[in-house]
């Protein structure tokens, strides 16, 4: 190996680094001892790299990131287990009905996850984004009443700071579901409010169901007979805004 070859290789050398087992580096390092000019160049580069490596390692990592990642896995695992249970329950019900001679034929979603997917699909069916624009919750409620939709919701505390843009009525599965459009200043969110929904594996009030639904991140929960489905935020935003001290605060 000549000095030019050694220099090219040593461009990617890190002392004690991930390439230490590569025997070609040992040869290149020997060349720095034979060629003093190469040796000086190498020492200067090592000093330079060391300071940049330290710089990269000063990028501060959020202190709660590890816990958030681990908490997210638990939520996902819970959700999957619940989905499996729901599927098993539906399958068992089907068998019982079939044996009894009453095979049930229906297109209605059997479980909450399907309903949620339909809801979100319907909300983005290519039609107008909003049926009614207003930042005033009372005006929105009045409009909902005028259109024979439920208007008995209250905006959760976690969304009190959000700015209302308007609403839309989403028709799915024979229901007319109000969808509120909000923004927190940077992100666009949709909050669906469904009254009296009774499906397999509904989200709990104290254990929000975090799930990715198509391109949307969603969080779903229940409060006072209303099922809330919030979409459009990222995992971390959900966690930061609505979970404090590991507890869900949206419906508390």
């Amino acid at each position, binding site marked *: 190996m000549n000095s030019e070859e050694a220099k*090219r290789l040593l*461009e*990617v050398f*890190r002392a004690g*680094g*991930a*390439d230490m087992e*590569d025997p070609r580096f040992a040869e290149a390092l020997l060349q720095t001892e034979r060629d003093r000019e190469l040796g*000086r*160049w190498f020492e*200067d*580069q090592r*000093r*330079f*790299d060391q*300071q*940049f*490596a*330290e*710089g*990269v*390692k*000063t*990028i501060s*990592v*959020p202190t709660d*990131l*590890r816990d*958030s*990642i*681990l908490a*997210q*896995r638990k939520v*996902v*695992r819970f959700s999957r287990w619940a989905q499996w249970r729901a599927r098993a329950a539906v399958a068992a019900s089907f068998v019982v009905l079939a044996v009894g001679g009453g095979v049930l034929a229906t297109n209605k979603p059997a479980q909450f996850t399907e309903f949620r997917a339909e809801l979100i699909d319907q909300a983005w069916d290519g039609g107008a984004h909003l049926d009614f624009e207003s930042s005033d919750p009372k005006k929105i409620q009045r409009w909902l009443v005028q259109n024979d939709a439920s208007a008995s919701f209250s905006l959760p505390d976690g969304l009190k700071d959000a700015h209302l843009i308007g609403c839309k009525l989403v028709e799915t599965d024979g229901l007319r579901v109000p969808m509120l459009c909000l923004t927190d200043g940077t992100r666009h969110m949709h909050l669906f409010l469904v009254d009296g929904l009774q499906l397999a594996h509904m989200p709990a009030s104290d254990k929000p169901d975090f799930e990715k639904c198509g391109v949307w991140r969603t969080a779903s929960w229940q409060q006072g007979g209303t099922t809330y489905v919030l979409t459009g935020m*990222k*995992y*971390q*935003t959900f966690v930061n805004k609505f979970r404090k001290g590991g507890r869900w605060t949206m419906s508390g």
Partner: protein
Amino acid sequence: MTLDDATFEQIVTAYYEPLYRFAFSLVQRESDARDLTQDTFAQLGRKSHQVQEQAKVKSWLFTTLYRAFVDSHRWKTRYPHVEADDAVNEMPAVTADAGDRLDAETALQALKEVPEVFRVPLTLFYLDQHSYLEIAEILGVPVGTVMSRISRGRAMLRQLMEDRPRNLISFDKLKRSVVL
């Protein structure tokens, strides 16, 4: 690879910090870096069968994060014909004392100003989690390209550090000298 809770936690503990730092170097925003990092571990939870052995999990995480970044930012659209190697003769000369004037904060700031095509391999290089062969795999480029980009990126950093106190050369000018 079987991924029980204990193994998952062990992997998260070992890699969440360098992974986040890599994500931050890509997106330059804490919230986006968090999302990229969390999404990557969420993918590991769902697709652990793709990782044949635990020794490969680190590279899998970095590769997955990088691909997610590329997909979401249409990286290749923004930089359709990056041929950094063509710029070899246009890179500034290296001086001996640039490194002495560095501190960590300045270093980080300078790194942010380096075009992405160089910043990504440089960050992986300085994070020192992977061999340069693995960096090539993560980025999906030939080994020689990685070596060149690290070398050119470092040269740009040196030029930045040289010029920073005097503000003699706009770094935009330096960037324009690279065929992007």
